[in-house]
């Protein structure tokens, strides 16, 4: 049959199976194909809530107290309703903040308080030790039960051996080693422990199957089902049956203890260290919570459905409820089913093992992060930090299990299993108010949390833990019976005279009263501190959809720390590779400037990132302490900027002052065109609002230097600054021109001398800023602000404001320049227009004068026919022709063209006509006339710098002799009827007005009747067509030849029309004048 060897081997095999499963799961995790990261394993792992207390203790309680064992499972089922909101929020926050445990969660929320973390750790340790002892006791006892069964044949030597007598010790060893191997592999606690979780899930399956196997066996094989058991029970043990199936108001269990247990269980499912570890920290995906919400209660239901049958079966079979705690084991054993009994034993073993492993790992993390690390930091031990921490963590696992073992050995037997469990639940419940406040009450602060938890803890200690020692015989019972100092008011189990509630309800009531009361009172009385407020918002708004971001950084590091220095710090705690990976991830999302440095405004966020990364290994309170220590070592600290904006503002809006300044500056820019005035008013505005010690506005000169355009100083005695400098004279101005960005320093003490600083006297000022005045193109100047005594004045917000003002100023400068240019252009245009008009007017007058000179109609004289035509061009040309008749037989014709186009020229023509008229009366030859004209007009012509071309013709109608003379004029065309050809008349003579002694030639020619003489000005022949061809004499001659028979006027008109056509629609460039003369039959000729 089964022997002890089988048992031992079975146990060893089963233990090895744990290791195998854990190793396999760990390998799969590392290779990326995890078997643990799914919702089924997640749900199963949560059932670690069911320990040997569930396995054995439920039956025990069902058999002795009745139905109220089920509250321990109904509570969590109720709580599961809330998981989608509460648990998910906790998971979200924990992942975002690298939370390592429940103590870390609460400590982080409440101002990252080290004290709070330590307090919670202490409570957790004190609370959990009894619970661990409970598990060890269960394993020991059941091992003993099995071994003592007659069918196991155990040699006496073995029976007396140490190992045999102390199974609990071996169990503890196994647990510790397993926990260290799979729970404390590395320091980085944000790594999940997949091996551990796999083993726990496996155990959950085993314990469910084992229990259900026993349950089915008992219900359907030993009896005939549920109804059979209930019926027999009501028949054979009616009193007990009634008691066990109802709640009584008079003695335990009553409604009070029902409600108390329910409440305690509701809290414990989330607050026990192992639960937090498994549900929150080991969670790999928020979506898994969804399925766990119904799977977990379903598991609880399944494992509880057979509790009542087994309990009653045990009572029926053994006649009473003695030893009911272990009915699960004893019933199959007594029925002879050893294998089933072994299975039941392994089930209980699994239930116990899982709990202790998880609890020891979770608690050791808390001990390390909240008790040991602060101590290590205080002792300033910094060498081989990671190795030291890892060793400490592993030691803690041993410590926790060992303490549990000690408790078990010393106290265990004197208290029933189930009571020990409730003590732990009550301890865990003290964290409930602080947790709920952490998630949903912004005002809950560290003072409230500490007050509440401390108060609740003290009450719990006094009302539960102390009595447990008393009842075990460690302390005299006087305290219990008579109260502290003999005051019955202070009886631990009936505090302040509250009787009738029972120990648990009493404890719960008072501890919650002091806990919640203290939390509310101190949270309302006191305010958050800096980090408390920040953390409070981070936690309570973890689900809000808008990414909450501060518009402006409100803190600065008083002394800058480089990226390298931060990386070195991180390496100490998380290792070189991880540190480098983390910093790369950070830098990928943040900008670094051209020097590879992080900007001053980025430093605080970098510091927070480093702190959070380190917190993943050591918890947030320790990380905070580490960073603070480090910064104080390098002489830097986080301090607030000097708040130039005095009014309080919400972080999402610009301050009132900034808006006011913007408004006023817009008004200033638009109010006037005077640049100097604008600059002055702007500087005055800034000076008044922000009390800068010195404001200097410099503008660029065309030669590239900067001259001071305006200076506003609040300093007594003023400041001597050079009026004109070149950008190269100052390092910062040079940088500013290169980068087009503001150059500033919040603390000149931190600056190394970097070359010339003509515009930045570093010794005189503590902080300064140079803001480029630049629009889209080249910089126009620099706005410089100096502060003598205030460090840390130039926040990002202030610099942004100043930059935008400088931009507006640049725009104003540009606008003023443009306006001036436009004015100038307009004036020039006006002047030109006026000039043009004046010219046009003058020309108009000249034209009028000119037109008045011409004869109205050609004279009528027998023997000759005369026609004339004169068309003035737009621009006055100055043509003139006239006719003089003497003795009724001689006609003098003159045609002339003056060179100018103005009133002066026109007046000269008037004078010429007068002179000519005077000449006519003496019968001179044409040449004589021209000579006289030249002489008389010479001085006037030369003064006016004008010239006249003229052609003078004298025709005697009696003799038919034509005499002519030319003063540089176009040669007239003569058509001779005798050879039907045209010829030109030419005579020597220079144009009038050039020089005094000019010889004019007289020429004569005898005309025949029908001859046509055409006098014209150069406007006729010099008209050009579109090919720049001139009309020319040839064309004129051709027309004359063709039309020599036509009436004279029509010849002239035709010629004119031809010229116009020739010009192809373009305007005449010069006047056209034509005088035509045709010889008629002689006076004396008779028609023969």
């Amino acid at each position, binding site marked *: 049959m089964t022997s002890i060897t089988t048992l031992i081997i079975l146990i060893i095999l089963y233990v090895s199976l744990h290791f195998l499963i854990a190793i396999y799961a760990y390998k799969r995790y590392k290779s990326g194909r995890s078997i643990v990261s799914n919702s089924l394993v997640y749900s199963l792992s949560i059932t670690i809530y069911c320990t040997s207390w569930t396995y054995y203790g439920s039956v025990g309680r069902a058999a002795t107290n009745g*139905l109220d064992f089920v509250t321990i499972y109904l509570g969590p089922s109720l709580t599961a309703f809330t998981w989608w909101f509460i648990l998910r929020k906790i998971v979200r926050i924990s992942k975002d903040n690298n939370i390592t445990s429940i103590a870390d969660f609460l400590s982080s929320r409440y101002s990252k308080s080290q004290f709070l973390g330590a307090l919670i750790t202490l409570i957790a340790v004190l609370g959990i030790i009894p619970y661990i002892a409970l598990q060890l006791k269960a394993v020991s006892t059941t091992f003993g039960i099995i071994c003592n069964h007659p069918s196991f044949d155990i040699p006496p030597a073995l029976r007396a051996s140490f190992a045999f007598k102390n199974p609990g010790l071996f169990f503890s060893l196994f647990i510790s080693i397993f926990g260290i191997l799979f729970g404390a592999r590395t320091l980085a606690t944000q790594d999940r422990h997949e091996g551990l979780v796999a083993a726990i899930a496996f155990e959950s399956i085993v314990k469910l199957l084992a229990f259900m196997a026993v349950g089915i066996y008992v219900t359907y094989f030993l009896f005939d089902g549920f109804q059979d058991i209930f019926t027999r029970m009501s028949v054979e043990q009616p009193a007990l049956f009634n008691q066990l199936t109802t709640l009584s108001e008079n003695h335990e269990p009553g409604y009070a203890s029902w409600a108390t247990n329910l409440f305690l269980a509701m809290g414990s499912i989330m607050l026990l260290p192992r639960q937090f570890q498994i549900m929150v920290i080991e969670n790999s995906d928020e979506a898994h919570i969804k399925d766990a919400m119904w799977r977990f*209660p379903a598991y609880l*239901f399944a494992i509880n459905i057979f509790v009542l049958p087994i309990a009653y079966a045990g009572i029926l079979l053994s006649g009473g409820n003695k030893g009911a705690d272990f009915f699960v084991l004893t019933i199959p054993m007594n029925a002879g089913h050893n294998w089933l009994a072994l299975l039941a034993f392994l089930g209980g073993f699994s239930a116990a093992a899982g709990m202790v492993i998880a609890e020891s790992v979770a608690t050791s993390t808390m001990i390390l992060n909240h008790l040991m690390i602060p101590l290590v930091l205080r002792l300033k031990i910094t060498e081989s930090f990671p190795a030291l921490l890892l060793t400490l963590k592993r030691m803690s696992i041993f410590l926790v299990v060992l303490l549990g073992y000690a408790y078990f050995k010393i106290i265990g037997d004197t208290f029933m299993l189930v009571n020990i469990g409730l003590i732990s639940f009550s301890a865990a419940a003290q964290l409930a108010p602080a947790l709920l406040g952490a998630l949903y009450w912004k005002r809950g602060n560290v003072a409230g949390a500490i007050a509440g938890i401390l108060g609740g803890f003290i009450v719990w200690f006094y009302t539960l833990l102390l009595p447990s020692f008393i009842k075990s015989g460690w302390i005299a019972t006087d305290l219990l019976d008579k109260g502290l100092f003999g005051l019955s008011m202070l009886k631990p189990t009936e505090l302040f005279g509250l009787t009738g509630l029972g120990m648990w309800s009493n404890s719960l009531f008072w501890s919650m009263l002091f806990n919640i009361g203290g939390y509310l009172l101190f949270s309302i009385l006191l305010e958050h501190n800096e980090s408390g407020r920040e953390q409070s918002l981070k936690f309570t708004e973890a689900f809000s959809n808008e990414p909450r971001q501060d518009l402006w950084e409100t803190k600065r590091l008083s002394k800058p720390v480089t990226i390298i220095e931060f990386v070195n710090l991180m390496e100490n705690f998380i290792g070189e590779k991880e540190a480098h990976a983390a910093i790369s991830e950070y830098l990928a999302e943040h900008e670094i400037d051209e020097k590879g440095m992080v900007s001053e405004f980025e430093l605080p966020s970098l510091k927070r990132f480093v702190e959070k990364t380190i917190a993943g290994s050591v918890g947030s309170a320790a990380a905070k302490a580490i960073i603070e220590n480090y910064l104080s070592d390098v002489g830097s600290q986080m301090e607030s900027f000097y708040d130039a904006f005095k009014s309080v503002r919400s972080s999402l809006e610009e301050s009132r002052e900034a808006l006011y300044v913007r408004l006023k500056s817009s008004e200033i820019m638009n109010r006037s065109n005077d640049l100097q005035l604008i600059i002055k008013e702007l500087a005055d505005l800034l000076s008044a609002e922000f009390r800068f010690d010195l404001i200097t506005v410099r503008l660029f000169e065309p030669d590239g230097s900067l001259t001071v355009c305006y200076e506003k100083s609040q300093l007594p005695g003023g400041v001597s600054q050079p009026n004109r400098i070149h950008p190269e004279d100052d390092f910062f101005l040079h940088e500013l021109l290169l980068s087009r960005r503001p150059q500033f320093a919040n603390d000149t003490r931190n600056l190394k001398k970097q070359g010339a600083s003509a515009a930045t006297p570093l010794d005189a000022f503590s902080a300064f800023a140079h803001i480029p005045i630049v629009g889209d193109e080249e910089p126009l100047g620099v706005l410089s602000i100096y502060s003598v005594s205030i460090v840390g004045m130039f926040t990002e917000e202030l610099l942004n404001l100043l930059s935008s003002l400088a931009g507006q100023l640049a725009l104003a400068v540009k606008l003023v320049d443009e306006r001036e240019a436009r004015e100038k252009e307009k004036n020039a245009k006006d002047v030109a227009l006026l000039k043009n008009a004046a010219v046009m007017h003058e020309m108009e007058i000249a034209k009028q004068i000119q037109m008045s000179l011409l004869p109205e109609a050609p004279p009528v004289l027998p023997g000759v026919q005369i026609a004339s035509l004169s068309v003035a061009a737009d621009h006055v040309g100055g043509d003139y022709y006239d006719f003089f008749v003497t003795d009724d037989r001689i006609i003098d014709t003159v045609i002339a063209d003056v060179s100018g186009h103005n009133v002066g020229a026109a007046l000269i023509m008037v004078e010429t006509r007068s002179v000519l008229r005077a000449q006519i009366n003496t019968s001179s030859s044409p040449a004589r006339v021209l000579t006289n004209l030249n002489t008389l007009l010479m001085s006037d012509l030369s003064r006016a710098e004008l010239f006249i071309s003229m052609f003078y013709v004298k025709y005697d109608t009696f003799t038919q002799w034509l005499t002519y003379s030319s003063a540089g004029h176009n040669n007239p065309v003569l058509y001779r009827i005798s050879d039907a050809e045209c010829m030109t008349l030419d005579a020597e003579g220079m144009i009038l007005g050039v020089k005094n002694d000019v010889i004019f030639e007289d020429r004569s020619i005898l005309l025949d009747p029908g001859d046509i003489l055409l006098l014209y000005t150069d406007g006729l022949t010099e008209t050009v067509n579109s090919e720049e061809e001139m009309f020319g004499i040839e064309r004129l001659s051709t027309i004359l030849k063709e039309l020599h028979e036509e009436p004279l006027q029509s010849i002239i008109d035709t010629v004119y029309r031809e010229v116009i056509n020739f010009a192809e629609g373009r305007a005449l460039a010069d006047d056209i004048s034509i005088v035509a003369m045709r010889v008629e039959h002689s006076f004396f000729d008779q028609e023969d």
Partner: protein
Amino acid sequence: MKPDRLKHSFLDRLRLKESWVIFFILGIIMLDYPFLHIFNKHILIFSFPLLFIYIFGGWSLSILVIYLFTKSIHTGSDIKERNELS
């Protein structure tokens, strides 16, 4: 179509945070003194103790309700995805 739409709107109702709070409080009430007292009688129904039936029956019902809720979370996110895509 109609049963599907009914189911949809029912599940939609379930998604409301308020529904959850209501169920939770209802659960607490039904597990405590007033209701408990009603069922706290020495009565056997088909040989099952009354309280036993009340508690285990109610328990399974609540598990069913949670199950339906988790289904509705799923449809909720589906609807949201469909709305975003369209």
